[in-house]
């Protein structure tokens, strides 16, 4: 039974119909993936990649227009309410009611699931602790910080004790400290056995939280695997980042050199040049040997950011 995937998509497609002056739009273009119980699965991609659209199709709030999708064994188009009853959703926008208190927001949400008052009250208490919002319980949402609101949205999404929790960009717009608090909460959920699906355009987030992830671009999946596998398969071990006063000339010289043959590669961004090499220091020595003098030179380990750059030729955050 643990072998049947919780969510399974084959050739999953979403075409938004034409509306007014805008033509129809293919936001998700035939993607395949399978989600196993207990794992944390990530969708990584730049703005407009189709992450939120995919999340909405899984959460049965946007009908699929092609392919097949099964969620917890249900068809999300025909059996939407059954699917939604067993999922927790943290949307990209919090959509909390700012005039209601923290507790009231939890209460109303529980009512939407048809839970009894006593049940909601009991769960709300433990969720307030989980979200570390106990001393704000009777404050209006209006006065909460961004990080607190996000924690409340996560707490709210857990009121029905969901089997799968979907988080759409859980930490976008938060400061580093608030992000770490949130990661810690998500990590605890994962340890408690909740299956997580999340979208992000932060590499570090994907590396921290995801067991497996897919990289999306323009509605398609361009790669999938564990963070480690992706790095091993699509980039070198190390990266040398260089900045030049005259980048164009330098890039031309580098491209003509041996650095670009033999497994090495070059990626030119508007403000810097990246040299992909298994040995960054050796590559730097080679750069100096070409009589190039970069303003700054940095050798670092390759990350998912580099995977994305390699796969799409574009940077993830624009």
């Amino acid at each position, binding site marked *: 039974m643990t072998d049947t995937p919780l969510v399974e998509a084959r050739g999953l497609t979403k075409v938004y119909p034409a509306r007014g002056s805008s033509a129809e739009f293919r936001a998700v273009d035939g993607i395949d993936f399978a989600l196993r119980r207990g794992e944390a699965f990530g969708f990584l991609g730049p703005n407009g990649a189709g992450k939120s659209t995919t999340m909405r199709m899984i959460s049965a*709030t946007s009908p699929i227009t092609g392919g097949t999708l099964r969620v917890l064994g249900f068809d999300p188009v025909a059996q939407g309410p*059954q699917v939604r009853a067993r999922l927790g959703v943290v949307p990209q*926008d919090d959509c909390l009611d700012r*005039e209601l208190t923290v507790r*009231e927001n939890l209460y109303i*949400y529980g009512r*939407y*699931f048809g839970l009894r008052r006593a049940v909601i009250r009991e769960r709300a208490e433990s969720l307030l602790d989980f979200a570390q919002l106990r001393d704000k319980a009777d404050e209006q949402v209006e006065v909460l910080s961004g990080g607190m609101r996000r924690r409340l949205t996560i707490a709210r999404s857990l009121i029905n004790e969901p089997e799968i929790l979907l988080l759409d960009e859980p930490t976008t717009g938060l400061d580093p400290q608030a992000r770490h608090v949130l990661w810690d909460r998500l990590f605890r959920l994962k340890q408690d056995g909740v299956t997580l699906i999340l979208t992000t355009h932060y590499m570090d987030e994907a590396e921290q939280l995801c067991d497996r992830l897919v990289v999306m671009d323009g509605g398609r999946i361009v790669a999938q695997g564990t963070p480690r596998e992706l790095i091993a398969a699509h980039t070198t071990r190390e990266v040398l980042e260089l900045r030049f006063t005259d980048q164009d000339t330098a890039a031309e010289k580098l491209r003509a050199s041996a650095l670009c043959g033999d497994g090495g590669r070059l990626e030119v961004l508007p403000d810097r040049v990246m040299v992909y090499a298994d040995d960054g220091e050796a590559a730097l020595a080679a750069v100096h040997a070409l009589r190039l003098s970069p303003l700054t030179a940095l050798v670092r380990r390759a990350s998912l950011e580099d995977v994305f750059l390699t796969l799409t030729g574009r940077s993830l955050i624009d």
Partner: protein
Amino acid sequence: MWRGFSFWLLQYRRVWRGTIVISVANPLLFLLGVGVGIGHLVDRQASSPIAGVSYLAFFAPGMLAAASMQTAYLESTNRVAWAAAPDGAYRAATPTPLSPAQILGGHLLFIAFRIATSSAAFTLVMVLFGATHGWSALATLGGAVLTGFAFAAPSAAWAVGLRQTRRINSVFRFVIMPMYLFSGTFFAIAQLPHWLRPVAYLLPLYHGAQLCRTLSLGTATAAATALHAGILLALALAGIAAARVAYRRRLHP
């Protein structure tokens, strides 16, 4: 549907005192100013086409229908458009087992409740002014609620798809306000030029005003009442059908 309703009720709890004051103060001022004030002038003209009743008794039920329409329009446009926005109240309910139709139902129930309470306050003021009484008052209230609802559902169907709320004010100024004037709210349709009268018959508010007036004055006939109520009911049902489609499109894109 009740689950969606309970949200709006919880929200309303913080503002209900203010809205009650407005619901009573509005008709009070209107009936005093227009009904009694202008009525004083009108009632002295023996040739008036509304002869037989005081201007206040003539005007008040028409105004009740118009006020009900206005409450319905305001409740089911601005708040609907706000709730449907990316961080609005509907969005919180969308990922739950509630369907778009249930979200609509919950909100329409609340709008009906608002129409009913504000119309009840208006009718109460009418009774205090002696403009109507007894069972007539109750029947008039029913007519006013139906009038409001006939506007609420189509307005919600339109507003849920709105991206900019500017249009709400334009429609108010260029559609709702003129309807006040040509629907026999302030004066009898018979006073309009001949060629303009058929236009009035097409206006839903005309049927609402006639329905309320005849019920209030006790001059209603079964046939006319059925016609007016039937038109309003048809509008309400068409509005609900359109809103169900529009809500699904917007909330489950």
